[in-house]
């Protein structure tokens, strides 16, 4: 072991770059004398492309890709900058969790607070398609009251738009993505038409939950999932193949059945002239004397590049979007950038069954219930939905280690029942709280940029909701015949660090996604949500994305720039 003094000397260093971290190497580098006749290296001069495009979009996930396609279809010159690479899923995506770790945003984030959030494979993504590359493809719509939490409960926030503003976009998306789901859908307002495809088949976990809920009088339904239950064709996209029940949605779909952005809106955008540049990490947002955005500076393959634009769409997600604004000291006048950070309560309940479940097969979230949307006996604001869950083995094992703390023979013994394990989880609303926020830390990453530090502590409302949900789920799993039941406390998606609102006093963007501070800067991703919602966010992010594009195009027509 290194002795203690050496440890103290080493201090806090970044784990990302070994050549910086290793004390010996660091010393060698510092001691190396500069060659006498070599001039000091000058920073490479930025190329000054006079080329000004109409729009630059940062990020190609659920927030960036739909609006990219919309703007391209309107005839604008648009360029998307994606931090990660472009993948060839058929060739490159393994049915192996560790081999697929490249899908996640693996730059380190610091998790603070009483209930530190996990990132990486939990809720982040990189690559053309962003986090949709590994989303589970749950696509429930919000219910109208999700958008009026303050009106209903006197807590949380109302959205500056209504369900009716989103409904046409939900409809459009469900048909473009090819959502498989029940028609009619049992909860929420009546719809103008059903889902384009019938639901995906129920796997073991879904059947167990269905059986138990029937006994208990809880309504269930096959869930709406953006994965194809049959071959599907869309103009501008082409044919996509049906789901093979591979169960690896969260590690990347290898046959295009799952409606990630790389097989839907990205090809649609490119077919209409959009340019998608992969491996482009944006560091600077440049402005003129009036404070309007003039372009962005980014790193691509170790080279610094600049792209000028008339309008910028920032769609980098609820961590990287506020991080970029904070790094650039941009759009900060409201004081709300990085604040109002919320995380969906995502408590999971696991049990062991006599039946063979083989939880790796089938769409993981096969069955849903929204009967807990506004429970009659609730002692909290908002509500949650229930989903059955299948699980990949390594994800499950790591949760057993972290959540149950099992090790030694007990861990191997418990894991040997993997084929008999099934779960249920919730996805619930979360209220903003002053203690939950994102800031820039003093610790630098490999790019020399401050790592984000994220504070999260479940408050009274989340704790009560989780307790309620655990009681309900235990009843269900008891009725299903589960033994050895245990709960895995978990927070899912990060939401709300650049929220939208009616006024620049307490919000970063308006209802159209336009920054109050900067007229030609738009934000569209989960950071703009004023409240967390009691449903999975992807479909609503996409709906906002299309709406943001339409509102922008309307302003263009009216010359309100």
């Amino acid at each position, binding site marked *: *072991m290194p002795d203690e003094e050496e440890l103290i000397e080493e201090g806090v260093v970044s784990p990302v770059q070994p050549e910086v*971290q290793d004390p010996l190497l660091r010393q060698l580098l510092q001691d190396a004398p500069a060659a006498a006749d070599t001039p000091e290296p000058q920073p490479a001069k930025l190329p000054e492309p006079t080329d000004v495009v109409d729009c630059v979009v940062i990020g190609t996930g659920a927030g960036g890709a739909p609006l990219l396609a919309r703007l391209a279809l309107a005839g604008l010159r648009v360029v998307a900058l994606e931090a990660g690479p472009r993948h060839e899923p058929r060739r490159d995506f393994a049915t192996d969790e560790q081999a697929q770790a490249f899908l996640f945003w693996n730059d380190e984030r610091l998790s603070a607070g009483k209930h530190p959030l996990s990132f990486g494979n939990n809720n982040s993504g990189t690559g053309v398609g962003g986090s949709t590359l590994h989303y589970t493809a749950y696509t429930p719509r919000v219910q109208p009251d999700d958008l009026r939490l303050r009106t209903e409960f006197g807590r949380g926030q109302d959205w500056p738009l209504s369900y009716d503003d989103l409904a046409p976009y939900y409809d459009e998306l469900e048909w473009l993505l090819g959502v498989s789901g029940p028609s009619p859908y049992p909860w929420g307002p009546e719809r103008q038409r059903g889902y384009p495809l019938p639901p995906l088949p129920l796997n073991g976990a879904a059947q167990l939950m269905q059986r138990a809920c029937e006994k208990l009088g809880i309504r269930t339904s096959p869930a709406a999932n953006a994965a194809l239950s049959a071959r599907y064709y869309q103009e501008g996209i082409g044919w996509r193949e049906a789901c093979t029940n591979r169960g690896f949605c969260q590690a990347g779909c290898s046959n295009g059945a799952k409606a990630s952005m790389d097989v839907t809106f990205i090809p649609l955008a490119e077919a209409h002239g959009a340019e998608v540049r992969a491996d482009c990490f944006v560091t600077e947002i440049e402005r003129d004397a009036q404070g309007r955005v003039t372009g962005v500076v980014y790193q691509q393959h170790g080279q610094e590049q600049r792209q000028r634009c008339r309008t910028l769409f920032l769609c980098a997600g609820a961590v990287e979007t506020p991080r970029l604004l904070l790094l650039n000291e941009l759009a900060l006048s409201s004081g709300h950038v990085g604040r109002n950070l919320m995380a969906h309560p995502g408590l999971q309940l696991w049990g062991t069954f006599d039946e063979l479940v083989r939880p790796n097969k089938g769409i993981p979230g096969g069955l849903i219930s929204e009967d807990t949307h506004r429970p009659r006996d609730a002692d909290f604001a908002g509500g949650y939905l229930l989903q059955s869950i299948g699980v990949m083995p390594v994800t499950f094992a790591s949760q057993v280690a972290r959540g149950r703390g099992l090790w030694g023979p007990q861990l191997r013994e418990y894991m040997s029942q993997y*084929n008999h394990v099934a779960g249920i989880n919730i996805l619930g609303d979360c209220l903003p709280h002053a203690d939950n926020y994102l800031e820039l830390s003093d610790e630098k990453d490999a790019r020399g940029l401050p790592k984000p530090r994220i504070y999260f502590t479940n408050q009274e409302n989340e704790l009560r909701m989780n307790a309620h949900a655990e009681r309900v789920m235990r009843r269900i799993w008891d009725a299903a015949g589960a033994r050895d039941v245990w709960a895995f406390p978990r927070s899912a998606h990060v939401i709300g660090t650049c929220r939208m609102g009616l006024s620049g006093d307490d919000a970063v963007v308006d209802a159209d996604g336009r920054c109050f501070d900067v007229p030609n800067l738009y934000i569209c991703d989960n950071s703009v949500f004023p409240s967390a919602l009691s449903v999975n966010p992807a479909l609503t992010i996409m709906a906002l994305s299309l709406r943001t594009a339409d509102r922008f195009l309307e302003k263009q027509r009216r010359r309100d720039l």
Partner: protein
Amino acid sequence: MKYPPGTVRALLDTPHVSDVTRAALQARLDAPAYEPQFFDADSYRLLGAVCQRLLPQTERGAEAIDLPAGIDRRLFSGQADGWRYDVLPPDREAYRLGLGGVQQTAQAQFQQDFLLLSAAQQDQVLAAVQAGTAPGDLWLKVDARRFFEELLAEATILYYSHPLAQEEIGYVGMADLPAWTRIGLDEREEREPQEVK
């Protein structure tokens, strides 16, 4: 043994496994003996002894899944998994401090090097670390419970990513071509192994 041995290995040679999946799994099966690059020899032996308690696999002998190798390789390359508990120092430092803490706790509890303790004593040391009650002033610098959680999670992920561990739990999800058609309760696809009763 709930499942017969060799199930994953047999499937790897079939068209049920895609090329890229096969490559990932075969590389783990064929991994050559590993020499540590990050840890010094003493720390590496200590890490090995700790992993042997977290996931004991004495029955495998020389075929044991090499967990310390995976940890050393990651720390040497400087890779992260996207987040870190803010209460912990950077991974390399956390591992150095945490392993030092394990040694301190062994000395405090049994006045012996961790490597010389009986398996039951080693387990007592690790249980104290997991519970956050372990003696040793290094634990003032690294949160014992979070360090243990991170170490256990990393060892567990490495273990169950290995084809031999997947055979042990009857998992053959890697053999997903052309599709799974029998996905309901008590439905077994022909290529899925049956439990040994």
